[in-house]
Each structure stands twice: as structure tokens, then as C-alpha cells.
């Protein structure tokens, strides 16, 4: 069995940042493995460890910088990684879920996985749509916001829990091949061991350009474009306690007494 895990390197804004045009100035961004994808990787690696003959391949659409993040996946047990990039991506205004799904579908075509795991959402642009868009594009079945997975590869069924709102989970049987979007908390992601980190250096990490995937620059065109980015107007009128920790703590303590939730 082959499992394809989609892995994104996401950007996180520092506490203080400036916006430069349509994005946060890169100086104020830190890059990391997307939290949801960390759980997707772990789920795939656990399936591999529980079964015979399971290969876990990761795919990332991202610039060379992303290789550090990709290696983190390899260090945690991914067998092989694919990075998709091309100069053409640098000019794309908005890499929306449909465009990403079209690119990823070309990788699925090459790799023929039985199961694709994605994250529920990317922590930076939070579309929450790439996995299910991909499923429809490649004609796989799917399930979104999965927080428990029991795979019966023989029967070709994934029994999942989908985490709904308000502490309710939906139990669903999904026919394979399928795309599942993985929710945090489904497992306990491991830390990469030193041995894992060392091994990751020699695992295959292949670059695919558009040509290699049979795609063209025009495939990256999207009807969506970002036209502005700004800090939201603060609706809040919070009273900010100023001063040393002792001073602010004293003010907070008297607030709590005034409101009446603590005695004294």
C-alpha cells in the first residue's frame, strides 16, 4: 500500500510585523511544518509501522526553502519526498486550493497512492479546502476533519470519526481509495530522533517541475487574486493594565475581587 501525505511549509507571523503590499514582509515571518500536516505524517507513519509493505511518500508544493520542513517529515518516518516547484510559481498571485489540487493530482497520477492524507487546514491561509478539492479532482472518496482512523485495507474501507462541532463525532465508513483531511489530536506526533534526522539526509527528495508533471504555466492561473491585506481595525476597547508584573497582577487581583469571582 502507498500513502501520499501532502505537507505544507507554513508561515507564521511574529508578534510585531509590517505588511508590505499584499503580504507580511518576509522578515517578520517564520516558516514551519504545518501543524495539521504533522498529525497527517504521524498517522501515515503509524499505519506503515502497523502493516506490511506500506510506503509513505510526502509531497510539497514549495520553494527550495521548504526542504528543511520536508526533511522533518523524512526524519519522522516518511520514506521519500517530492517537492514541486518551478519559477512559474513565484509569479502566481494566489495559489488557491483548486490550483494546488490540479498540481497535486498530477503527482497522484504518477504515484498511484491508495490513500492520501492532508491536513484539515494550512495554518497560514486556512483555506481548509485543498484535500477535498483534490479528492473530487482525482475521483477519490474522501472525509474531512478526521480525528480517528481505522483502516481495513483488505476490505478497502477506512472507518473514521469526523469531528463535528460541540463535542459530537460522526462515524463514517469511507471506500478506498480516499483522501482524508486529518485533524489535530488524532495521534501524538513523535519528535524526530537523532537517528531519524541522520537517516533523513540520505532519503530521496525529488524535485518535480511543471514539465515533469505534464503541466503548463497556464495551469497555475486562478480566477482568484488577493487585492489587499491589512491589520483588522481593533474593535476592542480593552483596558490594558500597565506596569511591572507585580503591578498588573495587583490590578487584576482587585478586578477579580470587584467582579466578585474571588473573595476578599
Amino acid at each position, binding site marked *: 500500500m502507498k500513502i501520499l501525505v501532502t505537507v505544507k511549509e507554513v508561515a507564521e507571523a511574529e508578534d510585531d510585523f509590517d505588511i508590505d503590499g499584499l503580504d507580511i514582509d518576509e522578515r517578520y515571518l517564520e516558516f514551519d511544518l504545518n501543524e495539521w500536516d504533522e498529525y497527517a505524517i504521524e498517522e501515515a507513519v503509524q499505519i506503515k509501522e502497523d502493516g506490511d509493505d506500506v510506503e509513505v511518500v510526502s509531497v510539497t508544493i514549495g520553494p527550495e526553502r521548504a526542504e528543511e520542513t520536508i526533511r522533518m517529515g523524512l526524519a519522522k518516518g516518511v520514506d521519500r519526498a517530492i517537492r514541486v516547484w518551478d519559477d512559474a510559481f513565484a509569479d502566481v498571485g494566489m495559489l488557491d486550493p483548486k490550483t494546488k489540487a490540479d498540481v497535486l493530482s498530477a503527482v497522484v497520477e504518477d504515484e498511484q497512492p491508495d490513500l492520501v492524507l492532508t491536513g484539515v487546514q494550512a495554518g497560514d491561509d*486556512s483555506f481548509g*479546502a*485543498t484535500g477535498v478539492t483534490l479528492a473530487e479532482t482525482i475521483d477519490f472518496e474522501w472525509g474531512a476533519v478526521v480525528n480517528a482512523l481505522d483502516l481495513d485495507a483488505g476490505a478497502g474501507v477506512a472507518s473514521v470519526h469526523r469531528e463535528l462541532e460541540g463535542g459530537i463525532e460522526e462515524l463514517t465508513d469511507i471506500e478506498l481509495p480516499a483522501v482524508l483531511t486529518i485533524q489535530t489530536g488524532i495521534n501524538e506526533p513523535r519528535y524526530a530522533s537523532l537517528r531519524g534526522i541522520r537517516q533523513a539526509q540520505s532519503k530521496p527528495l525529488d524535485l518535480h517541475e511543471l514539465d515533469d508533471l505534464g503541466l503548463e504555466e497556464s495551469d497555475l492561473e486562478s480566477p*482568484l487574486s488577493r487585492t489587499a491585506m491589512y491589520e483588522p481595525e481593533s474593535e476592542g476597547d480593552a483596558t490594558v493594565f500597565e506596569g511591572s508584573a507585580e503591578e498588573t497582577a495587583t490590578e487584576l487581583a482587585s478586578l477579580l475581587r470587584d467582579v466578585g469571582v*474571588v473573595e476578599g
Partner: protein
Amino acid sequence: MSDVLAITEHRQGELRDVSSELVTVGSELAAQQGGELHLGIIGGDVDAFAEELSLEGVETIHTVDHGDEFNHDVYTQATAQLFGDIDPTTLLLPNSVNGLDYAPAVASELDIPLVTDAIAISRDDGLEVTREMYGSKVETTVAVDAEVAAVSVRPAEWEPTEAAGDPAIESFDADIDEDAVKSTVTGFEEVAGGDVDISEANFLISIGRGIEEEDNLPLIEDLVEATDATLSSSRPIVDNGWLPKNRQVGQSGKVVTPDVYLAIGISGAVQHVAGMKGSDTIVAINTDPNAPIMDLADYAIVDDLFDVVPALIEALE
């Protein structure tokens, strides 16, 4: 034409709030487009739901009497067929968990662009959608260069429509291809039970990822003890297994409305805020003055929790 089609949501026999919120955003948008608002109701007790959703601004309600509960394959097919029949300019879907499970499939199948998690929508020259990025630290506008498009709408962002209206109610005979239904909902399970009910507490001290390590939790527990408060948390703390599920505040946890909600090291992600924004008094302790929780807080301390919390315990003693 220039109509809007909005697909409503229900679960276990009840309409979900987002349905009447979709009426609000849908009728506003329909007016801007010079068209009408159509609602789709798929599955469940469609007649009762249609009656409940006979609200101001709705022109026509289309009921699809198929199945009891949400199934993404059925919803995808039925929505696509309704779309084909009504021929709207804009398709509105809820950005709920079930919305995440079918909105992208519908848009992909119809080959129309999808913008997710909208917090504002307008149409002037073209469709423009406002959405957040970077954990709600910034807002962006997205322009849609297409005749027709789908937008998924953030729950609890628009006021629900309550005024009654008089829409036409029509039954729509969707032709569901059962062979293409490859997922089966076998049941529901309630999690987060147990002895503590954080939604009953009048003073919640809630801890987030700012606590960094499980070994630091006793510091917060000391504060909880000193104040006789109840301990709750954001999701990562529960995901890490440091606290049980019944302590989680938010969209997939509990909705709480205490007198005081003290958020320590919590950024205020939208799914967290969904569970606590109704609190009477919100206090935030956070090193980041730009954290979204600051917009919601009545009182704030911009400082390190590892300095403030010990000082607070002392000040209370």
C-alpha cells in the same frame, strides 16, 4: 441570472444557526446583485425545516427529500443539481465542519472558484470576499474574476434573520446516483463527557499553548486553587493529552459563558473564540499585543505569563 443559492445545514433533527445567518448574508448579496435568494434544504424533515426557514428575504425554498443526516456525496450531488436548475451567480455554503466536507467538492465538480471562510462579501464590479490569514492577525480581500462563484461563510459572523417571510416552497426531485455514494454515516458519538462541566462555571481560568510544557501546568493549577476557579483550555492542551477533552473551550469543545474568562497564553483563534465570546468579562494575559484575543478582551495584560501568574497568586494571598 443574478440570483444567490444558499445551502442550509441541520444535524440530528435540528437546523443549525448558520442556516438563518446564510439568509442574512444571502439576501444582502442578492439585493446587491439585483437577484433573488434561493435556499436549499437537503435531507431530514425538509417540510418542518422549510417552515422554520420561511424568513424575510427568501424568495424560494427548494427541498430535497433524501436521507436523514448529512452525507457529503448526497449533498454534493444535490447541490450541483440545484445549482444547475436555479442557475445562480453566487452559491453560498456554510464554512462548518460539514461545509468543509462538501463545499470544495461541489465547487470542483461545478468547475467554479471557491473562496472559503468569508467574513464579508460584496459585489460591486465583481465579487469581493474578505477573509482572514495568519491566525486572524490580518484580513485580506480576495477578488473573484469569474461569472459565477461559490463562497463558504463563517458561522456566527452574520446576525441570523428572524423576521418571517413568505417564500415559495418547492420540492426538488434530485436524481441521486447511489453508486456514487461511497461513504456511509454509521452513527454519532458524544465525547467530552465526564465529571466536570466547564459550561457551568462562573469563573474560568483557561490556558493555551503559551504554557509551553506540561511541567508548567502546576503553576496554573496553583492559580486555580488560589481563586477557586475552574480550569479550562484551548485545543492544543487537550490534543497534547495534558488535560481531558471536557476542558476544551471552542468550536469542537464546549461553549462557555462565565462571569469571568481569564485567557492565559491563548491567541484567540476563531474556533476558540466561538466557544467563549459570550463570556461576561474577558481578561487576557498574552505577550503578543497583536494577538486576536486582545480584540475581544475587556482587560488585558501584555506580559509574560510566567511573571504575571506567580505575581497574581501572591497578590491574591
